[in-house]
């Protein structure tokens, strides 16, 4: 070839070398620029809050790996090839080797690339771990919210329910029912314990897994735990209050039962006493009325005991009032078992106390009457026991006067007349007896153990005596008449 040709050729070769050098510089600049831009992105390991954001990063990384990086790998490879080709050509043409400009040396490229690959290394693994953590954390956070909401809706209003003072106005039966209900509640509460623990465990796990919103979770969890403690305390307190109230109402119930156990018989006794203190009685002698008085005295002797019992019974009711007042139970002190009121007991007791002296008086009046009757009996008897024999003696005297044959008829007559005179003088004794007898009859006295003589005995005797003496006098008179008329002696008449 020609020298010109050769010069041209050399020039062309030189130009080509120049172009390749420029090309190297340009490509290197671009590649290093891209690496410089890419490395911080790969080195940024700041976690995202959401899986979505994290999945986006993963997608970006996939894009990087599949779309953005492969051409760069290609470029770097090309750079290497171009560099080798250029240097080889320069050597062949005995030219000085190509020296890339500052910062664009082969070592610069290699170092940058190494840094890039260093950044890549573990990036995907970090992404996946983060994703896995976020998936878990998002699941647990949602689960926490669900469980917390369920729990909160269960506990809603429970504190207020537990603070109710409903037992203050409840009856024993009602308190026992409240206790049963409370036991059921305690079981519910115990069954919930597990769930509260799970809520706390989830919160704990969220903290350990570094959940970005752990503060709010913790706050809510704390609230739940605090409320749970309060519920526990309130439950315990309510149980104690219910049990205490039950005990008090049992005491009241016992007192009510004690009241009827004692008030019942006492009331029966008072009712009987009231009736019997007014009992109509009939007696016929001092002994009988004394018996009644003794019985009444026996009754009176037990009145202090009865009064003690009455006070004890009132005391039971007072005890009920005291228990209700001092423990601030808001229930009626009315005794559900009793038909007897305190007023009734008071009224009846007053009546009994009023009837006792009245009975005393009635009995004393009757005693006086019976004593008076007894005096009448004795008075009558004293007289009758004299009058009866007196009449009998007179009768015998009359009889004997006829047997006396020693005296004359006139003597007989005289003694009979004297007798008759005595009898007439004695009459007032019988009249006195008749008066006493009338009093006895008007006093309805039917017996008299102090004498065997009745008024009738005396009356019959008195009549007999009167007629006998009159008849005997008449007999003597007729004898005298006969004797005087016939002139015969007394003996002849007989």
């Amino acid at each position, binding site marked *: 070839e020609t020298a010109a040709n050769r010069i041209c050729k050399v020039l062309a070769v030189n130009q080509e070398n120049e172009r390749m050098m420029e090309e190297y510089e340009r490509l290197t600049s671009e590649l290093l620029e891209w690496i410089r831009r890419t490395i911080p992105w790969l080195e940024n390991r700041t976690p995202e809050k959401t899986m979505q954001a994290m999945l986006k990063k993963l997608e970006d990384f996939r894009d990087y790996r599949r779309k953005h990086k492969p051409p760069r790998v290609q470029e770097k490879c090309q750079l290497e090839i171009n560099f080798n080709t250029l240097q080889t050509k320069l050597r062949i043409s005995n030219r000085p080797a190509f020296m890339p400009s500052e910062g664009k040396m082969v070592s610069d490229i290699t170092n940058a690339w190494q840094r890039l690959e260093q950044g890549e290394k573990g990036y995907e693994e970090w992404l996946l771990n983060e994703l896995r953590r976020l998936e878990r954390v998002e699941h647990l956070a949602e689960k926490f919210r669900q469980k917390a909401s369920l729990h909160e809706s269960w506990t809603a209003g429970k504190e207020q329910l537990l603070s109710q003072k409903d037992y203050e106005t409840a009856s024993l039966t009602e308190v026992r029912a409240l206790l049963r209900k409370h036991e059921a509640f305690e079981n519910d509460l115990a069954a919930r314990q597990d769930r509260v623990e799970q809520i706390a465990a989830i919160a704990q796990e969220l903290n350990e897994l570094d959940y970005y919103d752990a503060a709010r979770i913790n706050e809510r969890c704390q609230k739940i735990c605090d409320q749970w403690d309060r519920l526990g305390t309130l439950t315990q307190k309510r149980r104690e209050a219910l049990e205490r109230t039950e005990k008090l109402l049992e005491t009241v119930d016992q007192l009510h039962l004690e009241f009827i156990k004692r008030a019942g018989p006492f009331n029966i006794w008072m009712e009987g006493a009231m009736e019997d203190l007014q009992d109509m009685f009939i007696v016929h002698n001092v002994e009988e009325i004394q018996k009644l008085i003794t019985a009444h005295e*026996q009754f009176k002797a*037990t009145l202090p005991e009865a009064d003690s019992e009455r006070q004890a019974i009132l005391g039971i009711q007072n005890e009920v009032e005291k228990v209700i007042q001092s423990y601030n139970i808001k229930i009626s002190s009315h005794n559900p078992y009793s038909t007897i009121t305190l007023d009734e007991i008071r009224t009846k007791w007053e009546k009994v106390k009023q009837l006792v002296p009245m009975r005393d008086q009635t009995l004393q009046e009757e005693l006086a009457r019976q004593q008076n009757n007894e005096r009448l009996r004795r008075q009558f008897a004293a007289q009758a026991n004299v009058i009866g024999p007196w009449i009998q003696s007179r009768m015998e005297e009359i009889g004997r006067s006829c047997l006396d044959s020693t005296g004359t008829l006139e003597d007989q007559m005289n003694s009979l007349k004297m007798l008759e005179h005595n009898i007439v003088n004695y009459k007032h004794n019988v009249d006195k007896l008749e008066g006493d007898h009338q009093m006895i009859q008007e006093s309805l006295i039917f017996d008299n153990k102090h004498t065997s003589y009745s008024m009738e005995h005396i009356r019959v005797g008195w009549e007999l005596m009167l007629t006998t003496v009159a008849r005997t006098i008449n007999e003597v008179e007729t004898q005298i008449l006969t004797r005087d008329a016939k002139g015969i002696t007394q003996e002849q008449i007989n």
Partner: protein
Amino acid sequence: QDGGSTKQVTVFKTYLSPWDKAMGVDPKQPTNINVNLLEYDIKAELCKYKSFNRSAMPYGGYEKATKLMTFQMPEFDASPA
């Protein structure tokens, strides 16, 4: 204090009055001089009546009452007032 404390004396009437005779009194019939009024009409025993009197039951019963009672029945002076 029976009226029959005197000795019984039996007698035969020596003189019969016209009334006695009219009544047909037998002179041979003995007459008793003694008189016992109580024979005229014998007082029958009074029948016993059931008592329906009641006294109030002492509180706690009679036995208790007897122990508690200090009451003594006052003596009764039966001499006529």
